[in-house]
């Protein structure tokens, strides 16, 4: 029994969150959305949509970004980080679906869009894409499980069809990552002008690519800490350079868009909107500038700090669109209830825990020892020479 007692600080935090999460789940089930949330007719979407879904799907963007880099653009050197990225993505999507079950009023009808079609609905498209893409991610991750189980034949069969699966995965991701932004196009007149723009889908897509890269770096850092592995340092350095460029593109688009729409005036309005807008932009612009500097990229600690800062900038952006920017037109103030926060944190904690277990028991970081020629990538998997930090 003592095996299951929490020992470290984080294990205690985890245990506490799970207990609180179970209690919050009980409230959600027996007292409904009214009992478990501070949502209202005026403010129907809270942090379960803004954080669990909008941020969750974004944070899982590393899966398609890295799959495209390695398998489509054939930059084989990034192969060591593909598997953890795909696992994070798969876990991310599964947890998004779990969160969706809390948020839906009729969770047992979540399958309805499969047979009740409405092609004019962005949500319909997102639902289909997320369902299909979660399947794709499962198939992309399946080789790792098959490898663990030593099932060579099914593994080879799967490899033969992997290319179309990967292409499909990138397309599905492109569609729904951008469509999460399109969800808010209908909110013309409701979403604050600092965020409402016809460019929302494009901005969501570009920032998702940035977050995909940032999460890959973030994971590499944490798994190297947790498992005493060597950080894939040269890879991470390259990724962080690409990340700086992606953030630069994103911020340029934001700037031009605000300029064209003449939306700067909204900043003079004193209120939470403009302050949180500035916070969001700073949390992206500062890490971008830092990552452009050679010195930041040479030090794992400063780079990690910059990447984490950008991840927070991304979270603030999504929450600004889902909550901050929607508040004024709604005429009410929305502050999430403790149950909303606890369930969100419990889902995040579960994600960390499952990732850790998977990293412990699955061949996540081992190089693929696949000497057979059935490799659709056409090249034998090369072992990257171990690099030392700072070289």
């Amino acid at each position, binding site marked *: 029994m003592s095996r299951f007692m929490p020992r470290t600080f984080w294990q205690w935090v985890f245990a506490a969150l799970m207990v609180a999460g179970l209690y919050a789940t009980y409230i959600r*089930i*027996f*007292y*409904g*959305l*009214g*009992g478990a949330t501070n*949502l*209202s*007719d*005026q403010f*129907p*979407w809270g942090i379960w949509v803004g954080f669990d879904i909008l941020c969750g799907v974004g944070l899982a963007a590393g899966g398609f970004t890295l799959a*495209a880099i390695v*398998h*489509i*653009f*054939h930059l084989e050197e990034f192969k060591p980080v593909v598997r953890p990225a795909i696992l994070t993505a798969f876990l991310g999507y599964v947890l998004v679906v779990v969160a969706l079950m809390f948020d*839906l*009023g*009729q*969770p047992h*009808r*979540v399958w*309805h*869009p499969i047979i*009740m*079609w*409405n092609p*004019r*609905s*962005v*949500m*319909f498209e*997102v*639902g289909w894409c997320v369902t299909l893409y979660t399947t794709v991610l499962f198939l992309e991750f399946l080789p790792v499980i098959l490898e663990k189980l030593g099932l060579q034949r099914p593994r080879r069969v799967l490899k033969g069809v992997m290319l179309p699966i990967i*292409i499909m995965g*990138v*397309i599905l991701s*492109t*569609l729904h990552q*951008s*469509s999460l932004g*399109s*969800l808010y*196009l*209908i*909110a*013309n*007149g*409701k979403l604050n002008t600092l965020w409402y723009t*016809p460019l*929302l*889908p494009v901005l969501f897509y570009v920032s998702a690519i940035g977050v995909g890269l940032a999460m890959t770096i973030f994971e590499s850092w944490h798994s190297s800490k947790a498992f005493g592995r060597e950080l894939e340092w040269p890879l991470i350095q390259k990724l962080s350079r690409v990340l700086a460029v992606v953030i630069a593109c994103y911020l340029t688009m934001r700037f031009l868009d605000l300029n064209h729409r003449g939306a700067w005036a909204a900043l003079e309005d004193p209120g939470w909107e403009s302050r949180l807008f500035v916070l969001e932009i700073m949390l992206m612009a500062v890490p971008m500038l830092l990552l452009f500097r050679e010195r930041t990229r040479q030090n794992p600690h400063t780079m990690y700090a910059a990447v984490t800062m950008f991840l927070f900038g991304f979270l603030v952006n999504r929450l600004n669109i889902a909550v901050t920017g*929607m508040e004024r037109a*709604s*005429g009410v103030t929305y502050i999430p209830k403790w149950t909303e926060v606890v369930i969100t944190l419990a889902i995040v904690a579960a994600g960390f825990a499952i990732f850790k277990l998977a990293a412990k028991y699955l061949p996540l970081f081992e190089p693929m020892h696949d000497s057979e020629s059935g490799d659709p*990538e*056409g*090249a034998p998997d090369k072992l990257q020479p171990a690099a030392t930090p700072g070289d």
Partner: protein
Amino acid sequence: MAKAVLYDNVLCVGCRLCEAACSEKWKLPYTDEIAGTEKTSAQKLTTITTHGEKFSRKLCMHCIDPACASVCPVAAFEKTAAGPVVYHPEKCMGCRYCMMACPFQVPSYEWNERLPLVKKCDMCAERVSFGGITHCSEACPFEATITGERDEVIAIAKKRMEASPGEYHPAIYGMEEVGGTSVLMIGSEPYEKLNMPGNLPKESLPTYTWAALKHVPDVVILGTVLMSGVYWITHRREEVAAAEGGEK
């Protein structure tokens, strides 16, 4: 031709008989407390609102191109040919996108139910579709709420405005807002003062979504071609390298 409802706040005396008739139709309790709450909710699908000496009314506007029907992932909302926008509760999965999308904050949710559904005015589709009039129109003693063909109702509105120009704000609300609505309003004040959103675009809201959504097939086709192409090029280099290496 589609039906429409006209609300005229100049004729409205705030008697709330429309509220009572609506609650009766939906078999909802109608107490003094509910009557005093000037907010729509799952308990009250239409309400009179007081603005100084004047009144206004809130009900579903039954948009000609409704945002709720366009955003619903399971098509639980339907704009019927007769005019009403109706809700099919058996389809609804409870995502509440309709509520987020509605420019008039109309759909209400049964927040305290374990398996909640949306509630909203359906313009008494069960009557209007067969030539009848809504319960609220029937209940109104002063013709402040009337039901008729949309162009007929507009003609009546214009006639009233011409008859006593000093009493009316010179515009019919719902003619152009979000592409036009099947509930129209004429009144004594600018409509912002009567609880109506004033910053709505003239285009229907689904047009803004469609501007992005229509590109989905392009992304699929272009994406497949591009990625297959990139794959072919990046792997071709390797094949060439391997072949040349073999010759040497």
